[in-house]
């Protein structure tokens, strides 16, 4: 079932885009040593945020650092965070769905409680909890990033668990599960041998959708100024410092450049645009998975006449043997 997606053009286009971006980003890390080209020569204040041109595709910031290479360099962190966070989200929710699988009477209560997530924008919830903690001085950057990641994972688990549990229940209604139960299959065996093979493609779809949700959340958090990647203050002139992102992680780029929105709009526009492009790519992948799953649920594909004929020849004479002539033993 999962092999089929490699034949779907939409999935391949989306996958190649994301894969290409990651390859470029690692190429930048390994071969170019993560160096961002900075224009040092025209260091006067008028020319400094360089506008997008053929030399600087996405323009540059006030330090003269090329925005395009910053975005390429940051891609691995942003995509890495999104992929890892969603993997943990889906993995933990998968375990959670087992717990809910036989929850029975408690289920409506759990469902009702987790509904409350639908009335709170998730970016606001994270901003609200993480915001005060991130301002504290006595934690290292990694502790803060880890904490924020944990929260981003945690808020999605209740609803995703319920979603996966409902998918399991849908599969459970199929007839082959009933016959497996009648044959005396234990619960664990039915789960691993009969339910899981049908669940993988659903899980893959949920995973891709979670990646999209995490990317959107990261973009929102970037705008709100709560972001991964760490912030260092770089000296711009003698008088004042401006925040700059350590790792060029995209939501950090948005947050760092947000205050220059009026002066140099491209500095905010291009990181947001990169988010849009990657989200579009993942949407293509999600659509591809949906389409290839639909194809499988309709196996009664009408073959053309030329396809049908040779299949008649394939019927072997040995397949019709009278029982009386059948050699036993």
């Amino acid at each position, binding site marked *: 079932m999962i092999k089929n997606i490699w034949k779907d053009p939409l999935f391949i286009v989306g996958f190649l885009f994301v894969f290409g971006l990651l390859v470029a980003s690692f190429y930048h890390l390994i071969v170019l040593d993560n160096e961002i080209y900075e224009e040092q020569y025209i260091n006067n204040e008028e020319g400094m945020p360089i506008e997008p041109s053929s030399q600087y595709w996405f323009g540059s910031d006030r330090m003269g650092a090329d925005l395009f290479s910053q975005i390429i360099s940051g891609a691995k962190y942003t995509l890495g965070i999104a992929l890892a966070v969603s993997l943990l989200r889906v993995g933990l929710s998968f375990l959670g769905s087992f717990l809910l699988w036989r929850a029975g009477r408690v289920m409506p209560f759990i469902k009702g*409680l987790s*509904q409350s997530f*639908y*009335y709170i*924008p998730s970016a*606001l919830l994270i*901003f609200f909890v993480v915001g005060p903690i991130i301002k504290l001085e006595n934690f290292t950057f990694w502790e803060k990033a880890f904490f924020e990641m944990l929260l981003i994972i945690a808020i999605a688990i209740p609803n995703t668990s319920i979603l996966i549990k409902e998918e399991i229940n849908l599969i459970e209604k199929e007839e082959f599960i009933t016959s497996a139960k009648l044959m005396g299959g234990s619960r664990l065996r039915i789960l691993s041998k009969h339910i899981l093979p049908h669940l993988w493609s659903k899980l893959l779809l949920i995973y891709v959708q979670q990646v999209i949700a995490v990317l*959107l959340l990261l973009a929102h958090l970037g*705008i709100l100024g709560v972001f991964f990647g760490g912030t260092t203050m770089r000296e711009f002139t003698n008088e004042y410092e401006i925040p700059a992102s350590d790792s060029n992680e995209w939501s950090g780029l948005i947050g760092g450049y947000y205050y220059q929105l009026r002066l140099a709009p491209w500095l905010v526009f291009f990181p947001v645009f990169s988010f*849009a492009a990657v989200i579009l790519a993942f949407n293509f992948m999600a659509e591809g998975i949906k389409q290839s799953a639909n194809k499988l649920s309709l196996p009664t594909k009408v073959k053309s006449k030329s396809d049908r004929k040779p299949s008649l020849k394939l019927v072997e004479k040995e397949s019709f043997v009278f029982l009386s002539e059948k050699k036993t033993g």
Partner: protein
Amino acid sequence: MPYILKDSFLSMILSVIGIILLGSVPYMFSGMTFNTSGYLDGITEMFRVMLNPEEIMYFAESGPYPLFPSMWGIYGYSVTILFAAFFIAIIVALMFALFIFMLPSGLKNRIRVFSFVFESIPDVLIAIGIQFFIVWFFKKTNILLFQVVSLYDQKTYFVPILCLTILPTFLILRILLLNIEEEYGKLYVDTARSKGMGRFRILWRHVLPNTLLSVFHQSRNILWFMLSNLLMIEFLFNIYGITSLIRTSGNPAVFTISMLLLFVPMFLFFTLLRVITFKWVGEK
């Protein structure tokens, strides 16, 4: 019918409890370590405060103020924007769907691809894009199309509603197009057609009500998505709405009461939809 009311009542109670539990999460962490007893104390405190909302204060630069009389204006403003955008999105998407349906199928497919691509654009990009378009237009022609940034006490409605409408419109349009197609494969359409009913009449009287049901089913997700958009738009356009209030206050009580107040109209709306659906098709 009594089942629906009972079930809605249960889910209302549970959602309120859930929101209060989420609102007291800041008490759960002292620094970065879990503090379970602090969380339990926080929850009891939160319940007490929610029962006496007139006690909640928020801190402005000039000192603490009671939240309550002044909050209604802010709240009303955000809710107006949210629901106006939602209903406009439904109406516009319906009109588009009807229009697209009348087009030849080659064009239809192209529009479907276009709406799919458009739907993937993050809300942030649309809000920033519109802002820049207005500024750019102003620079070129010296005509200020709309007030871009709202100043204190001056409420702008048009631009935020416009920004908030765009994405849900595409979302609903896609749901509608997908479901209209699905409905057309069903037998009752053939029956209606064989009786000699007109194309538009079948669409309007039979197919459309059924597809609207699927939009109703999705309305909770759509509104949730719009809440996030509202947060971004209030931040980017510097609107002092309910999410800005939460952002600037940083007080768990303000967060919880605002979320509860936002919950009320949304919940009433969903319950109403359930009742309507029940009367219509007998579906629970």
